[in-house]
C-alpha cells in the first residue's frame, strides 16, 4: 500500500462531560476506500467534524499527508472534498449559481470536471436550491465534494436519499476516484455498502474504535446463524457457550464460529427436533462480533 494520506492520532472529544470519541487512532493509505461504520450516536459524525475542524478536539490530532491539519490550512482544504450527511446550501441560489460560487474558491480551473459530474448525475442547473428534492440536493452535494478533484474524500452517509440507479452511478464514481489513487473515508451505517465498495472497515461503538479489519478478512470469518428447536436447548446453550441472538420456548438462535462438521458432532448427543444453519450476512457478523 501507498503512503499515509489521512492519519488520526489519539483523537478524543468530550462535549462537557459527555464522551463523543475517545482515543481514536486510524491511518488511511493512498488509494483506499475506508468504511467507517457504527450505529447512530457511536461517534462517526464527531470524528468527521473533528477531522474537518468544525469542532475543537479535546486532544489528539489529524494529519493529512503527514502534516497536521489546522483550521487555517487552506492548501490542505484544497485537497479535501467533504460531503456532510445532511446538506444545507444557500436556498436563494440556483444550482448553477451555487456551482459558480464554489468554483471561485479554487485556484485551479475545475469547470470541466463540473460539467462531467452534472451530466453523470443528471442534475438540472437551472433549478433553485430551495426547490430541490432530497435526492437532487444530495447529488449537488456530491458534485460540490468531487468537482475540485480532491485527493481525499470525506463522505458522511453519501447515498441516503439517492435512488438505486443513482446509487450505482455513485459507486462507479467512487471506483473512478479509487483508480485515480484518491483516498475515501466512507462513513455509513449501511453494511451492505461497505462490503460492496470498501477495502477496509473500522467499527466504532460508544466513541471507541473497536476494530479495524480488511474487508476480505472479515468476509473470510466463518460465521453461521444456527436455529435449533430442542427440549434440551438450555443444555446446548451451556455446552456450546454460544451467544444467543433470540430465544423462544425450546427454540434458540445463535451465531456459530465452528465449522459445520464440528457443530454437528457436538450436537449429536442431543435430541434435536429441527435445525437450520444459515450463512451470516455482514450485518449479522457486525452484530455478533461487536454488539
Amino acid at each position: 500500500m501507498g503512503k499515509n494520506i489521512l492519519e488520526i492520532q489519539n483523537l478524543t472529544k468530550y462535549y462537557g462531560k459527555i464522551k463523543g470519541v475517545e482515543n481514536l487512532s486510524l491511518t488511511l493509505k493512498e488509494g483506499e476506500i475506508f468504511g467507517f461504520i457504527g450505529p447512530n450516536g457511536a461517534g462517526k459524525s464527531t470524528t468527521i467534524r473533528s477531522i474537518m475542524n468544525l469542532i475543537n478536539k479535546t486532544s489528539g490530532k489529524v494529519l493529512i499527508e503527514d502534516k497536521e491539519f489546522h483550521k487555517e490550512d487552506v492548501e490542505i482544504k484544497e485537497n479535501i472534498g467533504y460531503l456532510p450527511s445532511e446538506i444545507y446550501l444557500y436556498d436563494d441560489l440556483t444550482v448553477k449559481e451555487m456551482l459558480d460560487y464554489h468554483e471561485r474558491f479554487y485556484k485551479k480551473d475545475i469547470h470541466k470536471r463540473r460539467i462531467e459530474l452534472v451530466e453523470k448525475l443528471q442534475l438540472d442547473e437551472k433549478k433553485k436550491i430551495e426547490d430541490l428534492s432530497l435526492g437532487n440536493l444530495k447529488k449537488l452535494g456530491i458534485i460540490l465534494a468531487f468537482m475540485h478533484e480532491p485527493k481525499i474524500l470525506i463522505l458522511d452517509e453519501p447515498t441516503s436519499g439517492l435512488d438505486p440507479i443513482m446509487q450505482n452511478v455513485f459507486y462507479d464514481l467512487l471506483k473512478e476516484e479509487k483508480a485515480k489513487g484518491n483516498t475515501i473515508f466512507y462513513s455509513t451505517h449501511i453494511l451492505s455498502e461497505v462490503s460492496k465498495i470498501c477495502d477496509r472497515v473500522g467499527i466504532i461503538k460508544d466513541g471507541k474504535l473497536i476494530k479495524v479489519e480488511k474487508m476480505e478478512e472479515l468476509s473470510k470469518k466463518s460465521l453461521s446463524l444456527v436455529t435449533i428447536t430442542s427440549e434440551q436447548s438450555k443444555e446446548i446453550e451451556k455446552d456450546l457457550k454460544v451467544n444467543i441472538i433470540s430465544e423462544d420456548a425450546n427454540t434458540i438462535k445463535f451465531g456459530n464460529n465452528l465449522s459445520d462438521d464440528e457443530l454437528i458432532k457436538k450436537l449429536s448427543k442431543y435430541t434435536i427436533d429441527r435445525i437450520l444453519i444459515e450463512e451470516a450476512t455482514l450485518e449479522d457478523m457486525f452484530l455478533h462480533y461487536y454488539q
Partner: protein
Amino acid sequence: MFKREMKINFKNFMIWTSILIGLFLVVFLVYPSIVNSENMQMMDEMMKIFPEEMLKAFNMDISSIDSAFGWLKTEGFVFVLLITGIYSGLLGSNILLKEESDKTIEYLNSVPVTRKKIVITKILCGILYITLMVVVIGIFNFIGLSLSGDFDRKSYILLSITPMLSSIVIFGVCIFLSTFTHKTKKTMGISLGIVFASYFLNIISEMGESTEFLKYISIFTLADIRNVIINVSINPWMVVLSVAITIAFMMLTIIRYDRKELV
C-alpha cells in the same frame, strides 16, 4: 464571497434605508406648510410647557424647529441615530451567525477559506452597508434641505456623519456577541435591547447632573449630536474612541470565532 455577502444583505439595507427616506420625504413635503408664523407661535408656546431637561434631551434648547433643518437637528437625527443603530445591531447579530443558523457553515468551512477571511469579509460588508446607509440618507436630506431653504452646510455634513460613530460600535458589539451562540433568534432581541437601552441611558444622562454618569455606559454618547450643533465640529476623541472600540470588538470577534465550535 464579498459579492455574495453584498447581494444577500441588499434587501434589508433597502428596507431600512427606505424607512428613513420615507420618513424624511414626509417631513420635507409637509414641513413647509407647518412652518408659518401662526403655527410657529403656537409651537413656541407649547414648547415652554416642557421642562428644560426634556428639551435638552431632544436638543430643543439649542435649536429651534422653525425650519426643516431645525427639525432635523432636534428630532430628525434622533430617528437617524436610532434607525441606523437598530439596522447596525441587527446586521451585526445576523451577518456572521446566519451561516451557522442556516447550517451552511458546514459547506463554507469545507472550502479553501480561513475563518479569519470569513469574519473579515462579513465585517467589511457590514461596515460598507452602514456607511452606505449614512451616505444615502445624508445625500437625500441634503437635497431635501437644499430645496427647503438655506441651511448651514458644514454643520449638516458633520451631523450626518455623526450616527456612523455609534452605529459601527453597535455593529462591532453585536457581531462579537453573536459568536457566543449558534442561533440568530437568540441574538436579535439582545441587539435591539442594547440599542434601546443605550439610547434611553443617553437621554436620561442628559436630564440632570445626578444621572450624568449614565452617559459613560451608553454607546450613543459617541454620537454627540449636541456638541456638533453647538460647536459645529465633531469631538476627535469620540472618533478615536469609536474606531478603537470597533476595532477591539472586531479583533475579539476574530479570536472568538477562530476558537468557536461551528456546529
